[in-house]
Each structure stands twice: as C-alpha cells, then as structure tokens.
C-alpha cells in the first residue's frame, strides 16, 4: 500500500524531533530511512506505525487519512531492534499471535492460523523450530521470527526499526540479502530504519537521508552516492575529502596554484571542494593538480589508502590507489579529482 507522510512535525516536550517532513512511499517499495542517531528516523517510523502521534501533519495509507487511527486499526507490521518476541510463547504462538487476537468475526479458524504460521516460518527458513521458545534461538533466528510474526497479519506496510542493529557483522550481511529476497517474493511495502549506510545502499530501492529532524535527500542508492545534494549527505555517505578552495576565472585554486579542475559557471569566491577517495586520477607533479607528500600508506584489502599532506593545516587528503602502486612515506604524489562537488562557505558538513 502507498504511504504518504505530509508536513509532519513532532515535538517531545519542547524538543523538536521532526520538522515539517514529507515523504511519499510507493506501493511495494523497499525504502530506507538513514541518518545518525537523533536525526528523527525512528520517530518518523513510529509515527507511520501509530506508536507516536504527530504534533502536526497527516499520514495517509492509500487515499485514507490514517492519522486518527490507532496502531491496532492501521494494520501494520512492526519489527523491533531487540525483537520484542513474547518470551513465554513458542515460536509458533508468537507468529500466530496477531491472528489469534482478532475479533471472532475476522479471525481465521484455528487450523488455518496454524497453517499460515507454519508457512511463514518456512518462508523465513525456520521450519521445524516452531516449538522452541525465543530464549532457545540465536539473535538472527529471533529477528526472523519477529519478521514472520509481523507478516502474519498481512500488514499494509512493514516497518523495521534497526532490524539488524543487535546482530553481529556476519549475520547482518546474511540477513540483509535474505530480507531483500523476502521482499522481492512477498512485495510488502517496507520501510526500515538504519544508521548503517552500507545496509541502506545495498538493500533499499530508495534511501531517505535524514539529519536533525529533517529530510536531507531522497533518492536511489546511486543518486545518493553519486549526486549528494548537501555537504551533510556527502560527508555522511561513504568516505569523502573536504578541501577549502577558491573559485576564480572558472578555475579552482588552492593558494595561488590551480588544481586543474574547470569550474565554469561557478561564482567567484571561497568554497569547499568535496570528492571521494577513489574518484581521483594520478598525474605527474605538474601545475594543475593537487600535490602532497605521503604521510601514511595503508593496504586495505584490495586497495591502497594513501594519506597526503597537501600543505594546508588540519587538512589531510585520503586517496585510494591500486595496491601495486608504490607510495613510500615522504614521497610526492600529484592527483586531480575526477568527480567532485563544490559547497559554499557556511554549509560545510
């Protein structure tokens, strides 16, 4: 189901958690709310669920105004970071819970509830474990039970709050792929909250980057990574270098040295140059490049990370080179960013 969030504002006491946030979620989409802690992403998720009420603004489920509906009436599936499984119930009872508590008029017969729960457990690859208690399962298994439980009620929208946050790295990666598969098979509209950019970029159809109670950017993972629209998004997603530069005559300058990057159309003045460590080309030490001495050189898996001193205090640049590239400490290197963005003074992220 389509979900629309319109001009939502939320205050806790006098602390504003969300400030005029609007978001359209398409039917069947897998969307990530990404941001640092305190950015309001979990609050937004809980507002969609109905676990919080907005101070102002509206939430639509399809064409219907869901703002006045209680969490029970919204028919959502919510998965909590720490699973929130009912510890005194078996896995099967946990998954059946949402159907069992329905009014008699809407409740499927007991045999059908059982069949559906078992089918869901099969889907989350926990067939045969239905008689276990949550305490007898691993973290990854518990979270899969939680997902099956949420899907059992055929929710309008599936909401996941840091679903992999409490798991260790290896399990996280597995569950990530697996969640994508489940989503592609079931087609539930899904919103998940994460502070892990890899998770968001790998898993989601679209990513919503949030900061300080506002949406900074909405886009596909490619758009978010390749065309970040603010210093915050550039700095928050992936690795980035920030160098103070001057724009003049359609060129970028560090001090009185042109760095060989054409910036035609940019107004003259001071700015910050943002670029990713891997978006660089090495040059001979000539005019028209950024040059520096190698301070640290580290081999990280398949690339060599080189930190360069470029003669500006408090500003070290990190670039990524092929591993066979020699970069002895103290030697000189010159490079030019191949893909970059300029952000003006006062907007440094």
């Amino acid at each position, binding site marked *: 189901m389509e979900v629309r969030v319109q001009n939502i504002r939320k205050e806790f006491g006098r602390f504003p958690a969300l400030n005029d946030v609007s978001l359209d979620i398409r039917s069947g989409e897998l969307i990530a709310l990404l941001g640092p802690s305190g950015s309001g992403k979990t609050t937004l998720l809980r507002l969609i669920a*109905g676990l919080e009420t907005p101070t102002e603004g509206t939430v639509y489920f399809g064409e219907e105004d869901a703002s006045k509906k209680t*969490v*029970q009436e919204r028919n959502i599936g919510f998965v909590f970071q*720490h699973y929130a*499984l009912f510890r005194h119930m078996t896995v099967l009872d946990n998954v059946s819970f949402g159907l069992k*508590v329905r009014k008699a008029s809407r409740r499927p017969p007991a045999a059908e509830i059982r069949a559906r729960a078992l089918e869901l457990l099969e889907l989350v690859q926990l067939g045969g474990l239905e008689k276990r*208690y949550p305490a007898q399962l691993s973290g990854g298994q518990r979270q899969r039970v939680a997902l099956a439980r949420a899907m059992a009620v055929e929710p309008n929208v599936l909401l996941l709050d840091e679903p992999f946050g409490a798991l260790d790295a290896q399990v996280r990666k597995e569950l990530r792929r697996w969640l994508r598969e489940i989503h592609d098979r079931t087609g539930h509209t899904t919103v998940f909250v994460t502070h892990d950019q890899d998770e968001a970029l790998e898993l989601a159809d679209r990513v919503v980057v949030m900061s300080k109670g506002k949406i900074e950017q909405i886009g596909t993972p490619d758009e978010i990574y390749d065309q970040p629209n603010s210093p915050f998004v550039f700095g928050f997603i992936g690795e980035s270098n920030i160098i103070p530069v001057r724009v003049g005559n359609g060129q970028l300058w560090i001090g009185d040295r042109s760095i060989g990057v054409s910036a035609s159309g940019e107004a003259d003045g001071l700015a910050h140059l943002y670029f990713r460590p891997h978006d660089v080309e090495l040059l001979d030490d000539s005019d028209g490049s950024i040059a520096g001495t190698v301070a640290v050189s580290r081999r990280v898996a398949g690339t060599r990370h080189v930190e360069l001193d470029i003669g500006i205090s408090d500003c070290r640049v990190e670039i990524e080179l092929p591993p066979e590239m020699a970069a002895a400490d103290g030697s000189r290197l010159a490079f030019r960013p191949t893909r970059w963005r300029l952000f003006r003074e006062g907007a440094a992220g």
Partner: protein
Amino acid sequence: MAHDFTSTGHHTSETVRTATSESRLARYGLIATALCFVALFLLLPLAVVFTEALRNGPGEFLTVLRDPETFSAIRLTLLVAAIAVPLNLVFGVCAAWAIAKYEFKGKAFLTTLIDLPFSVSPVVSGLIFVLLFGSHSLIGPWLQSHGIQILFAVPGIVIATVFITFPFVARELIPLMQEQGTSDEEAALSLGASGWQTFWYVTLPNIKWGLLYGVLLCNARAMGEFGAVSVVSGHIRGLTNTMPLQVEILYNEYNFVAAFAVAALLALLALVTLILKTLLEMKFSAQIAASRRH
C-alpha cells in the same frame, strides 16, 4: 575451576585460589557467623514455639485451637488476608504499570509514597486511622449516623492491613517492569491486540513470577500484622481479634500452651508460604531464568 598463575609446581592445591576468594579462616568465619545467627535468631525461637505448643501433646494442641475465640481469630485472619491481598494485587499492578511505563508529573512523589507504610511505624499507621474514622474526626459522626462501623470492627482491620501491606506487590513489580520496557506491549498492540489482550497475554505472563513473589510476601505480612491492627481492632474477643492479637491475649492470661499453639499455627502459615515459593521456584527455575535472560 580456573587456576591462579601463582600456583606453580611446589605449591599445594590449598594455596590455589582466585583473586576474589578469601583465606580459609575468613571463609569459615563468615559461614559460621551466618549459620550461628540464623540458628540463634530464627531456628531456636521457631523450635521454642513448636515445643511449647506441643508441650502437653498434640491432643491438647488441637483442643486449644478448637476454642471458639481462637477459632474466630483464625477465621478473621484468613478473611482479612483474603480481602487485603487481592486489593493490593490490583493496586500493586496498577501502580507499577503507571510508574514503569508512563512519564507523568509527580511520578517520583508517587514512588516515594508507596514506601510510606514501610517507613512509618505500624502503630502510628493504626493511630492515623483512629484519627480519621474516630468519633471526634470529621467523618466520624457522619459514619455513626449512617450506622457504619469502621473502627473496632472488621472494616477497620481490613483498611489497616491494606495500608500496611500495599508496598509489597508494587515494590516487587516496579524494577521488573522498568527493566522489561514497553516494546513487548508495543509489539502486541501493533499486531492488533486490544489493551486488555495485551495486558492478559503479554504483560501478565512477563511479570507473573515477580507478582507471585510479591503476593506471597504481602500475604505473610497481612496474616502476621500486629501493631496497626492492634490499634484499630478494639480487641473484642471472638469478634475483632486476629491471630497475632489472640496470641497476645492468651499470653497475657498466662495461658502459655494456647498462646504458643496459635503462634505455632501462625508460624506454620508463614512456613507454608515460604515452602510454596521455594517449590514454585524450583519447578519453574528454567522458565524464570529464561524470562530474565531473554
């Protein structure tokens, strides 16, 4: 057992110890002190109570308990506990729920207030109710004119007992519910459960062990309370004497066998409570551990 790295070859096994274990002397000293204390202040008095009660044989013991006044005291004690414990069960769950799951003004005040019966002497608590319901109080005359008897009657005893025992359940539940947080309840609500279903199927099972423990303690105190009940009861024989009061009366009349017989029965009720609790803990220890670990 992990071995200390100082335990090299020529040391005997007696010197092998972990950093937190004391020397043998200190260890046995501590154990001996604890055992002596328990023996002197708990087991010995208990033994005295039972030997005194059975001094003239079990026949006499039973005869004494069949005395109408004593029998009425036993009945009254059970009646008071049967009213006070359920009331405090409901109150305790409500108070713990409010304190653990909501934020509201005056929460700290309410938390402190719940402890009040623990910190005020029971005699003072009793006097409070005498002042509140007595003939010189504001509502005393109104109660009298409507023929409602509270002081020196069963209602007064029940009220005093409820007051004395109301922290037990709440105190037991508040830390437990605070630790568990609200996400289980939120999960149930998001799955469509009503508030009542959420309480019945999710909250209550999560707190049942703490609740049971609180209820047992509350029950033990309700049956054993002396001070507050003594002030409000009026000591009317066969009518407003509870078991502890009956023990005092019999004792003051030098009727030692009868006094100790009632005391033994009271102690027996307390022991049964304790044994019941231990048995339940043993039977469900796996479940209790699981519910804490999860």
